[in-house]
């Protein structure tokens, strides 16, 4: 039987997109919360961590209700939302660890905030950010709980964790059946 690689490719694409979404949302948020104090900043901080305690089924339900149809894009968004707290917390710690002295030095030397971020903060904190991206990607890649509900309705899209689950189920089923059949 030829090996079907499509669940792997699809999972990679799916996890990559979810990570990208999480980065786009969490990186500015982490920057904002480590660099500025403003009214409501603590509330925002709490909101970013909220998905940690949100049951996947609840989120999926609302997203599906909002989208109105089953689509693998919904699964990407669900995964991004679940990746967000993890990515956000790691990014935040990484950005907070970058010495403000370097950033202030850059500002004093005439650099604007955009330049400070890309030329000073990012190169100094990239290890932490890279670790956060890896962790977020891994989280999205192996995520099963939230996506199973969505993916089970999408025939074309079979994700690797779900394929693995299906294979495990078949394997276990065979073992059980064999054990039950008398010799």
């Amino acid at each position, binding site marked *: 039987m030829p090996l079907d690689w499509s669940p792997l490719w699809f999972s990679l694409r799916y996890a990559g997109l979810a990570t990208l979404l999480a980065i786009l949302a969490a990186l500015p948020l982490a920057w904002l919360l480590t660099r500025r104090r403003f009214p409501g900043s603590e509330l925002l901080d709490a909101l970013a961590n909220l998905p940690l305690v949100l049951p996947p089924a609840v989120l999926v339900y609302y997203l599906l209700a909002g989208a109105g149809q089953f689509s693998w894009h919904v699964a990407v968004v669900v995964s991004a939302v679940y990746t967000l707290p993890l990515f956000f917390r790691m990014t935040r710690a990484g950005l907070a660890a970058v010495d403000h002295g370097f950033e202030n030095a850059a500002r*004093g030397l005439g650099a604007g905030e955009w330049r400070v971020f890309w030329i000073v903060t990012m190169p100094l904190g990239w290890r932490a950010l890279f670790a956060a991206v890896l962790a977020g990607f891994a989280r999205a890649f192996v995520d099963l709980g939230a996506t199973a509900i969505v993916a089970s309705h999408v025939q074309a899209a079979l994700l690797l964790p779900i394929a693995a689950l299906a294979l495990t189920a078949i394997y276990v089923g065979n073992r059980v059946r064999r054990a039950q059949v008398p010799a």
Partner: protein
Amino acid sequence: MIQVRLAGDGVNVEFQAASGITALFGGAEAGKTRILDAIAGFATPTQGRIILDDGILFDGASSVSLPPRRRRCAYVARHWALFPHMTIHDNLLFPLASLAGVGRRERHRRVKEMIERFALHDAAPRRPHLVPPEDCLRATVARALIGEPKLLLVDEPAAGLDVAMRAEWHKILRTVRDETNLPVLLATRDLDTCFELAGSMLLLNAGRILQSGPPRAVLDQPVSVEAARLLGIRNLFPAEIVALDPGRNTSRLRLENFDLNGPYLPGRLRGDRVWLCVEPGQLHAAPHDGSKPAANQVAARLERATEMPRAVRLEFAGGIVAEIARWEFERRPKGEDNKDWLVEFPPPALRVLGCP
């Protein structure tokens, strides 16, 4: 020329500084860094006004606050803050990239010029952690000056440096002072640095300026006991003026256990309670040979003698501290361990401070 007035946030100061080095002298919580941060724009004060040359950097009343990049105040941080991921050359290039109207060739020409001026040839292609610290120090100053700032803020980068580095650092700052006519604000907690470099100093404590003026004048005549303590003056005694004679230019001061003759004290009245202050190095001390103490000599019991690099510090009962040269100390009669000494207070060395 920088004019600063700040209020609130525990800092309450008003001063101005022209070209040359002005030292902000004070201890750990004196507010030195907070003042520098407010001028550089890293922290926003609640009230006040900061004017550099003719431009307003900050005005609390009309809520004007320029972002740091537009203030043209170069900041030399305590840990130098050379970007660790760039070579020294790129560090020098960094401020030029934000300058409008400076072409690529002009930038490289200026970097080259700075490398010449601060002798950074060996360091230029390396990253800061591979460069000897004295080169890093020079590179930090070069980077601060390359964007042609209007003001240089320096936050005691010499704290914790060894003696040789400190000498190098003083040399760099002297060069900057003599070759440019930038105003420099130098935060320091080292009085020697103030004397070596600064044309004037601000004595800071708890966010307030206690006294300002040339370092010599400040040390010679502290305005208060608090100021004298911050300057590290050891001999401070409460006293009462019991006689004043303008004709013979004398006065008589009664301390807790003895009387002293001093110079006439203009502006004081008989019966005033004051503080007497004497630099330890200006007291004379010799072992007591049993003779009757002369005028202004006080018999005191030696409690501790401490060796210092270039002198011996003698601490007597009653809180009197004297510093005498080593050879003077060695000259005392050997054998017997004489604890009784005579301490002489020369009248010109006596200074009188008002009660707080």
